Each structure stands twice: as structure tokens, then as C-alpha cells.
């Protein structure tokens, strides 16, 4: 009797959540997860493989999944190519990089300052503002494309660099995650600094920012993904070809309605897709542990 009880408890320890090492009970999960993640990875492996295929492999019949003689030709073609309106591809890439960097930095600054005030300051509208932001977690940007279009037109932002950046800055999820993270910092830390006469700016810069690095990393990733992958802004709000982004350029390569020769352009499109995808992946790999520690604060009270 006693032994049976001991066995159940100890087996629970081994097969429980967040185990320390391997246990035979985990085999069933590997049996499900391995094939599934292989399946999930296929399209991504395909991007890598496709981008390095020479023309005869791109159009081989029967088609081959994996590249045999990898070549950089597609990338060379991509960068030596001009778009229909004689803008070099590097220009689109440059635009994307500038837009993304400015968007990420600015949205981190405005979200983290706002989150600090919402978490640690006392002011009248505090609860209301946070409640509004929580409702806005449900916000679907795609639903208000038209009113946004009218507002952007009215503000004379059409065909400017700013239209890439400004609409992406307020990210309710970002503010929410940072605010929850700052809530985890004890109020005493801030109060002690206030008693010492520190200004809010000093507290934010010297105390809060160093403690919320994981949250900052997380919303930097989210805003990076939103900005870097954004092709809609270029197609809706920009007519000046030299202000459009790389994501938009990629859509012109793959969209049949834009008159692109999808078959002939496949190698170039694959190379461009890989350039689109890689930064997302690299940044996430480097920051995944920070993201996970932020996510444990992500709870939403009903």
C-alpha cells in the first residue's frame, strides 16, 4: 500500500510539468510533436531550399523539394534587377530597414513610458486608460482601413515616410504586456527612489528600463514583425515608388494581378521571400527566452 502510494507520487514528479530530464512517459509527446513539427517546418525549409535553386531545378519536372546544386544566382538577379519603375531593389530594402528601425524604437519608447505611468504613477485617468487599452486588445486594424485612409489623407500623410511609421506605433498588446511586467516590480523600489528625490524620468531610465528588458525585447519583436512584414501601407497610402517597402516589392513579384510573370520570377521571388523571413527568425531565436519570461505576465483578467 505504502509502496504504491510512493510510486504514484514519484511518477507524478517525473512526468509532471517542466521535467528536469528525459522520462519514458515523454515518448508519446515526442511521437506526436516530431512528425507535426516536421510538417510545420516544411514550408519554411522550402523557402530556404527554393531560394538557392538554379533555374533548371526551379522548373524541373517532376519538381524537387530540396536543392541539389545550390547557387546564389537568384540573389544576384534580385539585386541587379530594377522594378518596373526603375527603382533598384536595394532602395526598397533600405526603406524597409529605416521604417522598421524607427517604428521599433519609437513604439518601444512610447509604450514603455506609458506603461510605467499606468503601472506606477497615481493619476485620475489611470484606470480608465488601461481599461480602454484592454478593450483595444480586440482591435482588428484591417477593419478600419477605410477610416484610417480618410484620416491619413486629411492629415496630409499620404506619400510621406511617416505614414509607414505612425499608424504602427500604438500597439495595445505591447502596452498591455509591458504594463503587466512592470506591475511585477514592487512599488517600494519606485517609492524609495521618489523619497530620495529622483525625478520620474530618472526612475524610468535608471530603474524601470533595466528591469523590464524581457518585456522590451518582446514588444520590439512584435512591432518588428508588424513593421517589417507590412505591405499594405505601401499599396494603400503611397504612390511614390521610391518610398515603398521591400514587403510591397515582394507582393509585386508574386501577385498575378500586378502583372508579374510568376513563373519566370519564381527564383527572384523565393530569394526575396527568404530575405523577408530570415530577420524575423534570427531576432526571435536570440530573444526567445526573454519573450517567454514576458509571456508569464500576460494574463488577462476577465
Amino acid at each position, binding site marked *: 500500500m505504502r509502496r504504491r502510494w510512493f510510486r504514484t507520487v514519484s511518477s507524478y514528479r517525473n512526468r509532471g510539468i517542466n521535467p528536469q530530464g528525459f522520462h519514458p512517459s515523454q515518448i508519446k509527446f515526442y511521437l506526436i510533436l516530431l512528425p507535426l513539427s516536421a510538417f510545420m517546418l516544411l514550408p519554411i525549409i522550402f523557402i530556404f531550399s527554393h531560394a538557392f535553386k538554379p533555374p533548371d531545378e526551379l522548373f524541373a519536372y517532376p519538381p524537387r523539394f530540396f536543392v541539389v546544386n545550390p547557387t546564389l544566382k537568384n540573389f544576384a538577379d534580385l539585386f541587379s534587377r530594377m522594378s518596373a519603375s526603375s527603382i533598384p531593389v536595394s532602395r526598397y530594402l533600405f526603406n524597409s530597414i529605416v521604417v522598421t528601425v524607427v517604428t521599433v524604437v519609437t513604439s518601444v519608447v512610447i509604450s514603455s513610458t506609458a506603461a510605467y505611468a499606468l503601472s506606477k504613477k497615481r493619476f485620475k485617468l489611470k484606470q480608465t486608460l488601461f481599461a480602454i487599452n484592454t478593450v483595444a486588445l480586440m482591435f482588428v486594424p484591417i477593419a478600419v482601413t477605410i477610416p484610417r485612409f480618410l484620416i491619413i489623407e486629411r492629415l496630409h500623410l499620404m506619400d510621406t515616410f511617416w505614414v509607414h511609421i505612425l499608424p504602427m506605433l500604438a500597439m495595445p498588446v505591447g502596452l498591455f504586456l509591458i504594463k503587466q511586467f512592470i506591475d511585477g516590480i514592487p512599488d517600494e523600489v519606485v517609492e524609495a527612489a521618489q523619497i530620495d528625490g529622483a525625478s520620474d524620468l530618472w526612475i524610468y531610465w535608471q530603474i524601470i528600463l533595466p528591469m523590464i528588458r524581457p518585456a522590451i525585447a518582446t514588444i520590439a519583436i512584435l512591432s518588428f514583425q508588424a513593421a517589417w512584414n507590412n505591405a499594405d501601407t505601401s499599396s494603400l497610402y503611397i504612390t511614390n515608388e521610391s518610398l515603398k517597402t521591400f514587403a510591397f516589392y515582394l507582393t509585386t513579384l508574386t501577385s498575378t494581378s500586378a502583372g508579374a510573370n510568376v513563373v519566370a520570377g519564381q527564383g527572384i521571388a523565393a530569394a526575396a521571400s527568404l530575405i523577408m523571413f530570415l530577420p524575423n527568425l534570427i531576432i526571435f531565436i536570440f530573444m*526567445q527566452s526573454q519573450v*517567454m519570461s514576458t509571456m508569464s505576465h500576460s494574463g488577462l483578467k476577465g
Partner: protein
Amino acid sequence: MQTAKSQSSLVLSLKKWWMKEASAYGFVSGYALMFLIFIAVPVLVAILLSFTFFDTIQPPHFLALKNYITLLTQDDIFMRYVLPNTIQFAVLVGPGGYLLSFILAWMLAQLPKVPRTIFALILYSPSMTAGVAMTVVWQALFSGDQTGYLNSFLLSLNLIQEPIQWLQSPHYLMPIMIIVTLWSSMGVGFLAMLAGILEINPELYEAGSIDGIRNRFQEIIYITIPSMKPQMLFGAVMAIVATFQAGSIGVTLSGSNPTPQYAGQLIVNHIEDYGFFRYEMGYAAAVSVVLLLMVWFFARVANRLFREE
């Protein structure tokens, strides 16, 4: 003398209070301004415009509820294709993707840290691709002639006799849209639920096993989910938003709006169709409001499910 002194101290404390509050408002202002201009005002404008006729050339004129009545009674395409498609897509992708995220997160939580991190990375990575980058992949995989990967694979197995126009076919477009969206649905909500499961105090499980919890399914229902309701709710809201935000996938895949025989036409495409192709902004705004109401309704349901007592 006394009153003057108290008056000056009152002024001083008022000033101090103002300084304190002012700095708080200063910290919030940048975000609040952007939120106002690009989130709050657009939603308000959408609601106001939805009661008008507006073609962007003439000023809007008031129609009261006419747009909504037209939408519900006369918009054949909306009723016959867009609404059923949206519901089918939303029901499969929303709860489907959510359930998949939770089950996968739960399985990952049973593994040691290193394999867990690798699997999490693999499962999360599709959600980073956000449509654009993957178009070329889907076009190659589902290409309509025999050089398409899926066609060539099925032909070689003799499962089909001639190539199928996957992305142009009204039969297959919707299932492909659903699979592609499910494939990329392990996003922020998935990570939140994974973190939530890992945060649960292990003693709860031991207590549960003493209290007579016999299998892992009971464990999930009675311990895991109740202990991570806030993360479950966050994940649900993210799943709902992602589902409706993914609305342009049909147009991306088929390369045209409207999609072939409206097979992949979702509410988002309907908005775009009326707003940017027909310039009926008022009507498009009414459809936008319906979309926002749908999101709000589903989020209410999720809220009911995971409210903490």
C-alpha cells in the same frame, strides 16, 4: 497672516499635485496620441460613416440605418458567400487554432527545457511569416499545373488523374485557406499559454493526485485550465483577433479580389471591395462595424468562459 500661509501651502500642494499628475500624463501622452489618431478615431469614424452615404467626392449624407438594412436584406453576395464563409473560416480557425495552441503548449510543457524550446521555436516560426513572405511557397506548392508540388505528388501516387487548379477552384480554396491559417496560428497566444502552464505551482498537481484526480485529462480540466484562466483569456483574445485579421489570405492565395466565385471571400475582402474598388465608403464602414461587433461578441464569450470568480 494665518490664512495667507494656508493659502500658499494649498497653492503649493496643488502645484505639487499638478507636477505629479502632469508628469504622469506626459509619460502617457505619446502613446495616447497615436492611439487616439490611429485606433480610437478610426473606430468612431467607421461608426459615424456607417450611417451615411459617402463616395469620397461629395460630403457624406445621412442615411440612418439604411446601410445596415441593405446589408442584411439586399446584399446577396454578403448573405450567400461572405457571411457563411466568414463563419466557417472563423469557427474552424478561431477555436480550432486555439485548441491546437493549447494542446501543443500543454504537450510542450511536459518536456525538458531544451527540446521544449526547440519545438516552441518551430511551432511559433510560421506565425512570424505573416502572409507576404509565404505567398511564393503556397504558389509553388499548390500550383495548378503538373509542376505544382502537391499535384505532382498526387499524380505520382495515381491519386488524381489530372492536375487540380487548387487556388482557383471554389472547392479547394477555402480548405487551403483554413489549413494555411491554422499552420500559422501558434502565435503570441500560444506562447502565453505555454508560459501559463509552466507557471502553475507543481504542488497543485500533487494535491490533486491525493484528492483523487485519476488521469491527465481530469488534471487539465480541474487543475491546469482553472489555474491559468488569465492566460487562457489572453490566448483566446489573440486567437480571435488573429482569425479576423487573417481575412486577406484568400485574396493573397488566389491573387484576385473577388476570389474565384466568391469561394474564399471573407468579410475583410468585402470591406475592401466596397471601400477601395466601388468607393462606397459608407457601406464599407457599415461592414467594418459588423466585423468589429463580431470580434467583440466572440471576445465576450471568451470572457464569460475564463472569468475569475
